[in-house]
C-alpha cells in the first residue's frame, strides 16, 4: 500500500513503521529501553537527570513566569518570589521528563533527539517516570506552601495538560497538536501573576493568549526545517501531514492572530506606551519574516534561511514583549 505524502500511520496501528503488528505498549516492552533490560543500561549520571528536564526550553518558561510575577501589582517577599520561579522551573522540568519517558521510542528515531538520556541508553524508563512524577508533586506542593494554592493549581494544570493532553493524546494524532498543546507553555505568566496576587485578571490572560497564538508560527517554522525527522518518527506535524504550502499559509494566518493578541494589552489599557511601541515594532518585524516564509515555495531543507530566521527571531520576540510589559508596568506603578 503506497503511502501518499501526508498519510501518517497511527503510531498504535499495526501498520506503523515500528514493530510491525505491535501496539505502542508492546513495542516499548520489547525495546532495549524497557525496565526489564536495565542491566544493559548504566547507572544514570546526575547530568542525565538535568538533561531530562530540557534546561534550554526551561529558560523561556522561567522568563515568562518571572515577567508575570514582576508585572503583577502588589508585593511578595523576594524569597517567596524566588521559590515561585523555582517551582515553575521544576514543574516545567518535570513535564519535560514525563514527555521524554513517554516518547522514548519516538526520540530514538529523530536525529535531533536520539542522544537524549532514554534513547541514548543512559537511563531506564522507570527511573525517568519516577523522577518526573516526584518532581511534579514536589513543585506543586512547594508552590502551594510558599505562595498560594491557586498558583499551585495552575502549575498542576499546566503539567497535566502538557503530559496528558499534548504529549499522550494530541501529538501522535493530529497536526493541530501544537496549536492546542501550545497552551501548556502559555501558563507560566499566569502562574507568576497568581503567585503574587492570589488571583487571575485580564493582563495574565492576555499574556496567556499571546504565547498561545505565538506557539504555532514559532513551532511550525522549526518543523519546516526538521520535517524529515518528524516524518521518520511518524509524528503528524503539519508539514508532514498537510505539506509545506499549507504550513506556510498557517504560519501567516496565526501570525495575524498573534499580532492582535500582542496589541490587546495596549488596546485594553492594561499596559502603557512603552509596551505599545515595542509590541508594534516587534510584531511588524515578525510579520515581515513570516510573510517571507509564506511567499517561499522551495522545500530544500538546506536552504531554509527565512524559516530559521523566523524561528530564531520568534524567541527574541517573546523576550522583547515580556520585558516591555515589566518595564511598562513598573513605570506605570
Amino acid at each position, binding site marked *: 500500500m503506497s503511502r501518499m505524502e501526508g498519510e501518517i500511520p497511527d503510531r498504535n496501528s499495526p501498520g506503523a513503521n515500528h514493530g510491525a503488528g505491535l501496539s505502542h505498549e508492546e513495542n516499548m516492552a520489547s525495546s532495549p529501553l524497557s525496565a526489564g533490560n536495565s542491566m544493559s543500561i548504566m547507572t544514570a549520571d546526575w547530568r542525565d537527570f538535568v538533561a531530562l528536564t530540557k534546561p534550554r526550553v526551561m529558560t523561556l518558561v522561567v522568563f515568562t513566569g518571572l515577567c508575570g510575577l514582576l508585572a503583577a501589582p502588589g508585593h*511578595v517577599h523576594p524569597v517567596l518570589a524566588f521559590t515561585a520561579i523555582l517551582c515553575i522551573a521544576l514543574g516545567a522540568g518535570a513535564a519535560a521528563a514525563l514527555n521524554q519517558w513517554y516518547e522514548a521510542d519516538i526520540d530514538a528515531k529523530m536525529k535531533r533527539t536520539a542522544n537524549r538520556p532514554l534513547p541514548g541508553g543512559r537511563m531506564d524508563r522507570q527511573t525517568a517516570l519516577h523522577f518526573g512524577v516526584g518532581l511534579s508533586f514536589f513543585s506543586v506542593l512547594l508552590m502551594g506552601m510558599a505562595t498560594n494554592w491557586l498558583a499551585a493549581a495552575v502549575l498542576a494544570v499546566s503539567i497535566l495538560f502538557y503530559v496528558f493532553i499534548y504529549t499522550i493524546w494530541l501529538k501522535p494524532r493530529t497536526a493541530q497538536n501544537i496549536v492546542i498543546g501550545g497552551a501548556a507553555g502559555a501558563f507560566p505568566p499566569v502562574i507568576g501573576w497568581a503567585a503574587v496576587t492570589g488571583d487571575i485578571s485580564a493582563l495574565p490572560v492576555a499574556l496567556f493568549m499571546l504565547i498561545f497564538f505565538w506557539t504555532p508560527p514559532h513551532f511550525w517554522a522549526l518543523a519546516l526545517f526538521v520535517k524529515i525527522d518528524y516524518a521518520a518518527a511518524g509524528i503528524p506535524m503539519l508539514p508532514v501531514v498537510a505539506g509545506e504550502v499549507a504550513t506556510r499559509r498557517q504560519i501567516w494566518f496565526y501570525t495575524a492572530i498573534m499580532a492582535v493578541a500582542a496589541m490587546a494589552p495596549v488596546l485594553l489599557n492594561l499596559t502603557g506606551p512603552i509596551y505599545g511601541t515595542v509590541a508594534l515594532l516587534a510584531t511588524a518585524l515578525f510579520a515581515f519574516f513570516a510573510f517571507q516564509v509564506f511567499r517561499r515555495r522551495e522545500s530544500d531543507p538546506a536552504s531554509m534561511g527565512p524559516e530559521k530566521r523566523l524561528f530564531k527571531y520568534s524567541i527574541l520576540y517573546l523576550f522583547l514583549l515580556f520585558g516591555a510589559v515589566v518595564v511598562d508596568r513598573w513605570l506605570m506603578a
Partner: protein
Amino acid sequence: MTPEEDKKIRARQKSRAIVTGLLLGALVILFYAITIAKIGGGQ
C-alpha cells in the same frame, strides 16, 4: 560486569550522591528562608 564498568558505576553513584546531598542542603536553606519570610508576613 567488567572492573572498568564497576568502577564507572561507582564513580557515577558517588557523583550522584554528592549532587543529591548538595540539593538537600540547598532545600534546607530554602525552607528555612521561606519559614522566616512567612513568619514575617511575607504574604
